[in-house]
């Protein structure tokens, strides 16, 4: 690892993009164990370049292939005779430009060639970025840094070390996730161990609790603190001597809120003392606050906020920002504890805070830990997983300003955490305004779309949600399609709910016979029928199934696959009354029923049970078409398609076109440009003008892309006819 060699990040920038990329690269370099120095090209002299063994260049191009203003002088100097030899240096160039200009990325090309000319070793090929440079530049930077990390302290490059020794602990924008880690350099040296075990290691955890949640959480964190060499002691706020805090070094406050922002009963007295003049100063105290509350109340987490502000006012030092928890506090509190405990552990026995030791403490704790102690005394084994370099892009929608867009984070995260945990982490550490539906892992309302895949985010691991390519997982998180978006990833299921309700999904049972039992007559169902009915409605989220139809977003009235699959199950249920079956048939065959589904393949590909549900929907469509006697456009399409295949073994588009559309439809297509695009299609691709002799005899048939009017039969066509006759005599 080349940790004692500086990496020079040199930028030539006109509008700030190259400088911005340089800053990002410098941050990311830390995760490769590289210290980076950023310099503008106007901040360095040419001869100084030879002081650096590793040089990463970001340079934009200006005007007609010119250097940006801040690079011009250096470039001119570089053209002189005094240019230094860089034979011991390694370099990489990322060039920014605009492909609509003739001299695309010329400045970067110039620097790339210049460094090569001076004898420097190019570690990775130059990247020429167009105006959309974010993603390619991010990939380039990661790759370049992994190569720079393979340069040893003597300046020698060892390609076999590329990609090794990557410290994934810290992301480029400092998202820290400490649930489970791997590849973190584990320090088992005596230094850190003795630090964690020497002197005063007390941690005071005060709880203010009304229902017991704060107390339970305080106890849990006290147990957890042992791993960090801390002796956690839990104090009830009731009867606690506030002024004793001034002699303590590490304090945690865990406090719930009661009523209209009030302190819980056991905290009220201590609070009154804390805000009185008798309260002593807390200058040497390091602290943090975990506030429990309920978002549905106006004064959310008010007690915790009050404690936080008062401690600060009295001179205590906040190590980690206050955590405000909603009713589901477990996960965020667990994350918070993993952030605050190493920080508190980094406070030594003399009361000095060693921020620089946090990483080492974490590494030590994770490396030494054989497992977390479960509540029931069992030891839970640590789960070791690869960290994943991730680029996470999330759809954002702000209903107040009615603005949409995306936010992107680059970070390293443990691969085994769920997508829901990723969202929680981003919300807790990066952007509190990020909005998504939280809940249990299998909560169907949490469904989102990730890289075109509809998932329940609590059930899908980060490292399995999409392929990891070039050591980077790029995911794009969006709300489900077909629903109105309330904010960010939160959809409004109301439209689907209204359709479900309008379909009268409840059972209207027929009178039927059953088995006589000692409890009376009990209706029975054949197990095979029961299994089949269950399979039709066996899906984990109605919202996902609703959204799996690509027709739903474009057809407001269409009931959608979720409603129709349930209707079809009712239709097939032997307990359903005949009158209800007739109603269901009418609904399925109506314009908002299964006829409105344009393509089953999109439903088939989503969810584990997609093929079975698509098959059930197909059955319902077959039933609807049969009941309608293959009338209407859709019926005619299906009928004449099948008929033409029976006739020749091939599809006759002309027959289907005429029969399904009728004269009116044909006329409309004639004037809507459809026919014209068919006829003149050959001019656009340079194909043949005439597609057959018909073009000469009966145009427009046979011209351009107009389909054939008459088909030659496939070889052994009689076999096809025989199959039709055997299986479906209707055609």
């Amino acid at each position, binding site marked *: 690892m080349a940790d004692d060699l500086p990496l020079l990040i040199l930028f030539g920038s006109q509008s700030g993009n190259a400088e911005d990329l340089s800053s990002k690269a410098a941050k990311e370099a830390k995760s490769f164990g590289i210290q980076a120095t950023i310099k503008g090209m106007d901040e360095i002299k040419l001869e100084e370049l030879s002081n650096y063994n590793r040089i990463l260049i970001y340079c934009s191009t200006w005007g007609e292939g010119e250097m940006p203003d801040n690079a011009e002088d250096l470039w001119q100097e570089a053209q002189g005779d005094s240019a230094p030899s860089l034979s011991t240096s390694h370099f990489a160039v990322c060039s920014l430009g605009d492909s609509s200009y003739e001299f695309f990325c010329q400045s970067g090309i110039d620097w790339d060639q210049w460094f090569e000319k001076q004898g420097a070793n190019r570690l990775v090929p130059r990247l020429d970025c167009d105006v*959309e440079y974010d993603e390619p530049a991010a990939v380039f930077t990661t790759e370049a840094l992994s190569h720079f990390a393979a340069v040893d302290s003597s300046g020698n490059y060892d390609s076999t070390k590329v990609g090794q020794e990557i410290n994934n602990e810290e992301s480029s924008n400092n998202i820290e996730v400490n649930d489970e880690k791997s590849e973190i350099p584990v320090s088992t040296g005596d230094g850190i161990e003795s630090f964690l075990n020497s002197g005063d290691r007390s941690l005071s955890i005060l709880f203010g609790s009304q229902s017991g949640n704060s107390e339970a959480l305080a106890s849990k964190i006290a147990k957890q603190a042992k791993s960090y060499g801390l002796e956690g002691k839990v104090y009830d706020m009731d009867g606690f001597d506030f002024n004793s805090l001034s002699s303590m070094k590490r304090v945690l406050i865990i406090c719930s809120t009661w009523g209209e922002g009030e302190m819980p009963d056991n905290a009220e007295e201590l609070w009154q003392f804390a805000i009185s003049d008798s309260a002593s100063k807390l200058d040497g105290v390091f602290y943090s606050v975990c506030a429990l509350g309920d978002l549905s109340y106006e004064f959310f987490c008010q007690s915790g906020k009050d404690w936080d502000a008062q401690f600060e006012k009295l001179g205590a030092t906040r190590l980690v920002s206050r955590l405000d928890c909603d009713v589901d506090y477990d996960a965020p509190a667990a994350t918070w504890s993993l952030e605050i405990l190493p920080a508190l552990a980094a406070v030594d026995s003399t009361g000095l805070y060693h921020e620089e030791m946090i990483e080492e403490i974490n590494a030590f704790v994770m490396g030494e830990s054989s497992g977390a102690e479960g509540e029931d005394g069992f030891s839970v084994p640590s789960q070791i997983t690869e960290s994943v370099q991730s680029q996470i892009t999330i759809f954002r929608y702000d209903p107040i300003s009615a603005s949409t867009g995306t936010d992107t984070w680059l970070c390293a995260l443990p691969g085994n955490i769920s997508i829901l945990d990723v969202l929680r982490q981003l919300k807790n550490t990066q952007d509190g305004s990020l909005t998504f539906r939280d809940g249990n892992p299998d909560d169907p309302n949490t469904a989102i779309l990730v890289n*075109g*895949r509809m998932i329940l985010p609590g059930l899908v691991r980060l490292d399995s949600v*999409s*392929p990891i*390519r070039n050591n980077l997982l790029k995911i794009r998180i*969006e709300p489900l399609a077909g629903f109105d978006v309330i904010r960010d990833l939160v959809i409004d299921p109301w439209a689907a709910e209204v359709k479900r309700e309008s379909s009268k999904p409840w059972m209207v049972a027929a009178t039927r016979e059953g088995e006589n039992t000692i409890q009376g007559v009990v209706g029975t169902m054949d197990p095979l029928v029961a299994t089949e009915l269950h399979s039709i409605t066996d899906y984990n989220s109605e919202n996902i199934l609703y959204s799996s139809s*690509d*027709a739903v977003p*474009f*057809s407001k009235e*269409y009931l959608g696959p979720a409603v129709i699959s349930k209707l079809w199950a009712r239709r097939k249920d032997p307990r359903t009354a005949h009158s209800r079956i007739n109603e269901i048939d009418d609904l399925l065959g109506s314009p908002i029923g299964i*006829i*409105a589904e*344009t*393509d*089953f*393949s*999109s439903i*088939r*590909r989503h969810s584990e049970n997609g093929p079975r549900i698509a098959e059930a929907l*197909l059955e319902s469509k*077959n039933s609807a078409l049969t009941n309608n006697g293959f009338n209407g*456009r*859709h019926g005619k*399409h*299906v009928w004449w*398609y099948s008929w033409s*295949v029976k006739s020749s*073994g*091939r*599809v006759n*588009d002309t027959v289907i076109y005429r029969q*399904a559309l009728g004269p009116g439809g044909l006329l409309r297509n004639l004037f*809507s*440009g*459809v026919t*014209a*695009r*068919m006829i003149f*299609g050959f001019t*656009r*691709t*340079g*194909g*043949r003008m005439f597609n057959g002799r018909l073009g000469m005899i009966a145009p427009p048939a046979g011209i351009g*892309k107009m*389909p*054939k009017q008459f088909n030659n039969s*496939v*070889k*052994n066509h009689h*076999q*096809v006819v*025989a*199959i*039709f006759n*055997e*299986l*479906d005599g209707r055609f």
Partner: protein
Amino acid sequence: MALKFTFHPGNVAHSGAPEVMDTIIPVCRTLGIDLFPIDDATSCGAGIIRQANDLLQITLNARTLALAESFGYDILTPCAATLGNLNEDLTKLRDDPLLLAKVNDVLLRTSNLQLKGEVNVRHILHVMVEDIGLEKIEKMVKNPMKFKIAGYYGPNMQQYGFCGEDDVYDPIYLEELISSLGGIPVDWNSRTVSVGVPGIYSEEETVLKQIASTILDAKSQGAQMIVSSCTLSHTMMDIYQGKASRITGMATNLPIIHLSEILSFAFGHHNSRLAQFRTRLAVIGD
């Protein structure tokens, strides 16, 4: 050694898109693929026949599959919909021995054929990436396709077990192939969504909106064209894009070309067509 496949061109190549057959033949010759046309093969049903009678479409496709088996080669197709339909029925037959026996009974009586279920159905895209290799393809390129290209997969092919080693939801084969041809692949969301082919006659307005949405997504990401791996979807996006524009009021003009066409252009076949295509892009962009 040459790769050998039986060949099913799909409905569109047979009827409304002669350019597919014009281009796929020389492309396969260049790639060293020997094609054996199945003269007896029927339409794959395009998911339409099964709406009338599922067993009928399965049996027709079982006949096509059995014919390919008698050649001893897997089926190659340039159409994602054909691939999807044949594979869907093949999967059902493989998974259900009773269904296979029932279908074989019909095939034996009507066509004197039997399906074992050993044949596979492959798309030209998967054969190029997995069997031939992108490095080799890159070396074959004579005319680099220096355009921003949106690759369209469609939903038929992107199903578990149908798309080779590519990812079902976040595929990359087409983008990698475009890069190998010298093009710049565009990152866009709609590349696997349906453009509603089976519903074009009955649900025209919905389908036209689907088409418009797909094309607009590609355009908004800077694509100069869409390359479609589905010949059936190509027809929708190409022929109906003007009408889609009228319905939605949005500018949906964008050149849509078949995968086989761009391969042919890149490999140096049909240079005059490429010249016309370049002119079309430069002058009208439509």
